[in-house]
């Protein structure tokens, strides 16, 4: 049986096709086994007996909430604060300084976290920028997080994290400065929450709510869930949103090599990528 579980093969196929049509993501064979486990809470919440009944309800009931819950449950929302913290160190020390010079005239900095999940990455960036204080005085700084998951974005907006989540990657000094301890968990202070805007978006279809082209795009560990044609489309979308002189941040195991000709490895910063068509023009020295 396809999922190794109790549901029929056609049920798995329908669920995979729902995921792909709604998000562009595909489930590799090594993730299919997770479907049954991931969807268990959805079955319980909606009083549905099993995956075959879920598929029947999805096909016949036309319930938006059930569809959203089903898709959300099949997504991988893994994230944590300052993931691969050396990347954030490089961004703090080099990339932001480069962008400050490039955008000196407009005094505007736009950062887009694509596939932001429950928000930790965007809050990481917002804390870092806030702590740079005077460097951005008089600038418009936008930090925008988008994700296809309604559940993840609603959690990101609230900014409430469990003890397990708050400890993952977040230095303790920042934790006590930017979060309050509550009975429900660790809550981002209003001053941090107001620095980030979150919205539900499908990056393959929707245009992110940015006031200007993005100077820094985080798209980490998302494209690996897209099949190749979709991945190429995603890179094209990222390029369309990116400012001419900008950086793209991918996950540690991801690359543009053999994936797209829209971006190339940054000659300035190891591990980051830049729009390919800008490599002949370098008007500003980092």
């Amino acid at each position, binding site marked *: 049986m396809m999922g190794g579980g109790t549901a029929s093969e056609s049920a798995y196929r329908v669920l995979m096709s729902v995921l792909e049509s709604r998000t562009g993501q595909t489930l590799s064979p090594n993730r299919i086994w997770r479907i049954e486990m991931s969807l268990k809470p959805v079955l319980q919440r909606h009083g549905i007996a099993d995956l075959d009944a879920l598929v029947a309800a999805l096909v016949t009931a036309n319930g938006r909430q059930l569809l959203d819950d089903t898709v959300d449950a099949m997504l991988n929302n893994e994230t944590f604060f300052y993931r691969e*913290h050396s990347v954030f160190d490089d961004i703090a020390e080099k990339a932001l300084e480069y962008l400050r010079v490039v955008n000196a005239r407009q005094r505007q900095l736009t950062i887009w976290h694509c596939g932001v999940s429950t928000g930790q990455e965007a809050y990481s960036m917002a804390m870092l920028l806030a702590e740079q204080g005077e460097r951005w005085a008089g600038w418009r700084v936008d930090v925008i997080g988008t994700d296809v998951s309604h559940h993840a974005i609603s959690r990101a907006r609230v900014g409430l994290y469990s003890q397990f989540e708050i*400890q*993952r*990657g977040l*230095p303790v000094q920042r934790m006590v400065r930017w979060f309050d301890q509550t009975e429900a968990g660790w809550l981002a202070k209003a001053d941090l929450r107001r620095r980030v805007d979150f919205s539900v978006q499908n990056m393959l279809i929707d245009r992110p709510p940015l006031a200007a082209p993005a100077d820094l795009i985080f798209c980490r560990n998302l494209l690996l869930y897209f099949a190749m044609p979709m991945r190429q489309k995603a890179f094209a979308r990222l390029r369309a949103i990116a400012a001419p002189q900008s950086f793209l941040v991918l996950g540690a195991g991801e690359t543009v090599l053999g994936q797209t000709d829209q971006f190339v490895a940054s000659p300035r910063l190891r591990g980051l990528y830049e729009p390919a068509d800008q490599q002949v023009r370098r008007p500003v020295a980092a």
Partner: protein
Amino acid sequence: MSKSCLVVDDSKVIRKVARHILESMAFAVDEAADGQEALRFCRANRPDVILLDWNMPVMSGMEFLGAFNDLDFGHDERPRVVFCTTENSIDHIRAAIEAGADEYVMKPFDRETLEGKLQLVGVA
């Protein structure tokens, strides 16, 4: 050269779990059952990092930290101190930072959390 860690906890089980995780990360591990034992160890040795419980008999983690701060490590870098405790209130955490702790792990913890904290203090 492998890094070294002193695990200070009155619970044998916690010391065993911490040792297991740390050794799998290639740390050389020493153990102390209270602050006084830890202080004796630190007068003769310089571990790269100290994993420190809060509540212990004889000498608590905070009492240890007070005495530890007076030790002279000469030209060597001061060992990093990471509290690892069930005292998880923000008041305890603030007090630990003020007393000189470099990081704070709230129990229960898993390997990934501990590894992340050790990376943050630059020893992993």
